[in-house]
């Protein structure tokens, strides 16, 4: 077990290394750099002036040199300076991460708190009217584009309440943050909630059929105990996997939701940084996101291993 964890950690480092090379190269394949964009917004075309900026930022050095500078800086804790704002990357990223983290956290919380109970109900009341209703409802959640849902929500609020639940200034208290993020979180989490509901339902159904549940029933435990204690725990397995997979997909939903609800989080910021070809910003942000995804994957795989004894990796 320990050796497995150590091995996975080492592999994590390999993955992160791969991500760093990938994003570094990808960015430089894309035509246009910050000098182009700055000059484009000013409407100028003087190659000599542009070259000065390029040299200033070290963009003319050989690729391995640039990469080396970045990575060694990373180890020292120096993430470099944003090409656009000329401020340290850390100062730009750090305040924004909690915002997106809160949004993502609330969304997942919403998804799990609505998805799991509804999934259980749907499974226990299989093939009844309620089951069909819930299944159709969850399918709707999976079918709607999240930005469309967001727009519809905004339209609804404006039309019926004359207010608009978007971010316009930094909330003062933690509670104020939650209040502001609740609606966007629901918009983002609706889809995940539908997914979790369906998965909970199908894995509950599967487990409810299996032998040991019948055995538990025959022991005379009450229906309720059977459902909740045995089936639920075992049904959680695919759900946990999904949470892992969803974390990566969540990013897309976060980007559009932050755009529609105007939340100044890290997701929206990343898109802008790409548009501006702000290499230090994009590289470091992507590394951070990759770190989160990789860690979540590891946790998911460990949980998977614990619960399903049939899966043993090369042992």
């Amino acid at each position, binding site marked *: 077990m320990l050796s497995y964890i150590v091995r996975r950690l080492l*592999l994590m480092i*390999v*993955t992160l290394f*791969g*991500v760093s090379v*990938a*994003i570094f190269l*990808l*960015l430089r*394949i*894309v*035509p*246009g750099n910050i000098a182009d964009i700055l000059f484009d917004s000013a409407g100028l075309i003087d190659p000599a002036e542009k070259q000065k900026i390029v040299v200033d930022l070290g963009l003319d050095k050989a690729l391995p040199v640039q990469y080396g500078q970045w990575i060694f800086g990373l180890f020292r804790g120096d993430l470099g300076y944003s090409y656009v704002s000329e401020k340290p990357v850390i100062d730009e990223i750090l305040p924004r991460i909690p915002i997106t983290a809160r949004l993502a956290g609330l969304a997942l919380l919403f998804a799990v708190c609505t998805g799991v109970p509804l999934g259980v109900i749907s499974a226990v009341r299989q*093939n009844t009217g309620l089951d*069909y209703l819930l*299944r*159709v409802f969850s*399918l*709707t959640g*999976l*079918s*709607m*584009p*999240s*930005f*469309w849902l967001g*727009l*519809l929500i905004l*339209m609804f609020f*404006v039309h019926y309440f004359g207010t608009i639940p978007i971010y316009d200034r930094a909330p003062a208290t933690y509670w104020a943050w939650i209040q502001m993020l609740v609606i966007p979180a629901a918009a983002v989490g609706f889809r995940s909630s539908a997914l979790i509901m369906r998965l909970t339902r*199908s894995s509950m*159904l*599967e487990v409810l059929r299996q032998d040991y549940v019948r055995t538990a029933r025959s022991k005379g435990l009450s229906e309720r105990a059977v459902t909740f204690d045995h089936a639920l725990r075992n049904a959680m397995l695919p759900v946990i996997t999904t949470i892992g*997979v969803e974390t*990566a*997909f969540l*990013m*897309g939903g976060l*980007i*559009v939701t932050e*755009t529609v609800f105007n939340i100044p989080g890290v997701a929206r910021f*990343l*898109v802008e940084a*790409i*548009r501006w070809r702000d290499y230090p910003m*994009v590289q470091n942000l*992507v590394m951070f*996101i*990759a770190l989160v*995804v*990789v860690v979540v*994957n590891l946790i998911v795989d460990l949980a998977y291993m614990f619960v399903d004894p*049939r*899966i043993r990796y*090369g042992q």
Partner: protein
Amino acid sequence: MSEIAYLARRYPLGVGGAIIMTVFVFAAIFAGTVAPLDPFTTNPRASLAPPGGTYLMGADMMGRDVFSRMIHGARISLAVALGATFLGSGFGAALGLSSGYIGGWFDLIVQRIAEIMQSLPLLVMALVITASLGPSLTNTIIAIAIPLIPNVARVIRSNVLSLREMPFVEAAKATGMSEWRIAVVHVLPNTLAPLIVLATAQLGSTILTEASLSFLGLGVPEPWPSWGRMLSESAAEYVQTAPWLVIFPGLAISLVVFGTNLLGDALRDALDPRQQD
């Protein structure tokens, strides 16, 4: 005939989904004849006309008929979705199957590559790909297919891992069957069902991804009438006076994805023996 009746009784939702899909696919294939007006012709006088009369679903800012654009949009959205799903699922399955079955170093490397691809956020990848290759139909398909690969590979791989330990595989090994034959003859068919289910599920998500990309200004460019792009910039601004510009394309997207999901569910119920009622 009786087969269809049987199916309809057994999988009512699935048949519903199939019907929805058929309608859209029909519209997509025969867009030229079905659409009442040309989706590209601009007509300033009809700008932002409300639904009714010649413009069944209203007209957009440039005076183009929304209904006709929706029908042609079906073609674009479905083409992108099908293309990306085939590409992504195909590559992903091949990768997952081989890495799960072969194991060892190969598995390790493929796993890492998959993890790397998964760690790069989907929209970031798409942005980068469309920026470097230029916005076009093919590039959008590639941009959407690529992030699918690691996800499909991962699921197929874990499936294969379980299957590998199954008794019938052990038995086949005991009889001296070559690894290659076991993989193709025994393991692969058992992954097909989940693969089809997965692919159908992915179909829906690729349509949504294309919509998000177009919403952000990437994805299929002008003048192709992609549903996703019909929902972005020049439509959504008029959201108060011309809400039909936002409602109809969104409904279309939701309906198609709904259809694929219904179909996918029914397929899973039918094909995946573990899920039989």
